[in-house]
């Protein structure tokens, strides 16, 4: 099979499926913590494990972390952080892990907790579940992520936006959640390929087999996905007039409120990303020394 080096293949832990790949970047999704070590060993035999992403209904503080998980790059999608007391007690263990924690943005407490975790050196982020968002709170989190003068761990998706932003390109931060078919492809146990996690769940496959991945560039679904943004300009949606279009691309079209709160947030995030670029440009070049 031709390798598409830039794609990470996202799949469940299925040893039979994994054995068909060689030299690929593989990301495993799971709904439990069982078999984490086995996953690590099996995938890394002939491929590279990008991370294991666990989607669970347990709060962070109710998870019992095992010491030997510290070799496994882990991403956790959790409903909440849990009690602060327990979190502080767990910190020494968490800090040994190679860990990212994502909480749903719809709960205001989660937004505070993401900042809490980041302030203590834990890579954390929000993800957008399909529920009403407190845009003001998200704005505060974005401001913290981009402007805080105190050191902290990255906060997603703002870290991604700041670090990947280029002024002459749009930026799809769905990549943070593996939903960018230019970087991630989702494969089911039968080897069929979907462009996003949602499409995989819905059984909508772009390719009947992973063996066809090298035809992706010409694949109609793939092309349509990458040109779907043009609909906004054909239909002249509110998003097409948004000053922050380039880093959002209409993700919140269905939930635009009268104050255009999403626009207010992303305009500030865009300015933060530009500041970040500017600061990095001004860093002095390294000078070779003995």
């Amino acid at each position: 099979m031709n390798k598409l080096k830039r794609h990470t293949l996202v799949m469940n832990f299925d040893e039979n499926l994994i054995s068909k790949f060689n030299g690929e970047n593989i990301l495993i999704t799971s709904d439990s913590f069982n078999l984490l070590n086995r996953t690590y060993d099996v995938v890394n035999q002939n491929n590279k494990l990008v991370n294991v992403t666990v989607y669970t209904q347990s709060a962070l503080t109710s998870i019992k972390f095992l010491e030997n998980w510290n070799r496994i790059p882990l991403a956790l999608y959790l409903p909440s952080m849990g009690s602060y007391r327990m979190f502080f007690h767990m910190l020494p263990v968490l800090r040994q892990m190679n860990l990212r924690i994502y909480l749903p943005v719809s709960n205001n407490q989660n937004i505070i907790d993401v900042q809490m975790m980041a302030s203590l050196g834990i890579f954390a982020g929000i993800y957008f579940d399909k529920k009403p968002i407190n845009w003001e709170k998200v704005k505060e989190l974005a401001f913290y992520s981009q402007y805080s003068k105190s050191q902290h761990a990255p906060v997603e998706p703002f870290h991604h936006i700041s670090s990947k932003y280029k002024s002459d390109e749009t930026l799809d931060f769905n990549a943070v959640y593996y939903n960018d078919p230019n970087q991630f492809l989702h494969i089911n146990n039968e080897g069929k390929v979907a462009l996003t996690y949602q499409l995989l769940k819905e059984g909508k496959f772009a390719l009947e087999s992973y063996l066809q991945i090298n035809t992706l560039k010409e694949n109609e679904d793939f092309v349509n996905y990458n040109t779907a943004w043009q609909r906004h300009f054909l239909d002249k949606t509110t998003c097409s007039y948004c000053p922050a279009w380039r880093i959002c691309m209409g993700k919140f079209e269905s939930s635009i409120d009268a104050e255009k709160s999403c626009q207010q947030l992303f305009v500030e995030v865009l300015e933060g990303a530009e500041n970040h670029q500017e600061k990095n440009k001004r860093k002095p070049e390294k000078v070779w020394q003995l």
Partner: protein
Amino acid sequence: MANILLTQQCIRSCPYCFAKQHMSENAPDDTLTWENLMYIVDFFDASNEKHFSLLGGEPFLHPNFIDIVLYLRERKFRTNVFTSGVMSNKMFEEAIKEFAPITPNQLSFVVNVNDPKKTSFSELETVKRFLRAFGHFSSLSFNVYREDFDMDFLVQYINEYGLKRHIRLGLAHPIPGVKNSHIKPDGMRDMAKNLMSFIPKLNANKISVGFDCGMPMCLFTDEEMGILYKHAGGQLKFTCGPAVDVGPDMSVWTCFPLSNYKKTTLFDFDNVQQIRRYYSKMMNAGKSEIHGIFEACDDCEWRTEKLCSGGCYAHSVSKFHNEPENLRKLEEVINNE
């Protein structure tokens, strides 16, 4: 060291309390939120000041007090807590358990105690319980509001509970516009004499006394100054400068007695140094306009040399509080700075 108010609530009702008016004007359930705390910690971190004091009201009354201390420890902050030592059993047990792994260089308590003869039995027992458990973290604070104060019990506490061998002695100051117990200027000399009477005992017990701000130098004779100098190892303070207090609502003021005077907000500043500069400037401008607590302060060489501030600034502002014209002139001078 700056002070962060966790809560406006207090269990006690000390007659000299200089936080009285501030607390009466603010909602009792106004406590510092996690968001504001994180902002404050970042603010101080970015200012390269990784230490501050936690105050109230009574900081232990904050529902998340323990977690706050644990958080500050994780952020590598050195925390000093001003407390009465009076708290519920539940809070006490929790503190014992959770502070066990913390070392005294990460956490310290300044326990503000009152004369046992003027304290209820139950309160006294609670305080002693605290001192017994956290003696190695704690030092004592005592506020003088009467000329005939007693310090013997302080010596006893330090010896009995193994406390740090230092007493912070504060002089209760008047709050502009409020009637709180304090020593009037004409009673201060007697207060000073009374203090000097305790120095031999403190020396014998190897306990040092340090003055909080606002103690006038002229209260002591030259001979007394020499004794004090030796007692304090040369560390004597007779000046009054900005402390920097931050309220739960992120408002900032220079010190509690002046908590309603030139209040600002933390969001107006980029760092702690800026706040100090702002309030120093304000106080210096004011001090140039008004003399200290005594008439003689106006021509005092020690004041000119900035060895003494002429007592608490709040004293002087308090005087002007009932003189609108003078207050207006003072405002003008400060605003023009």
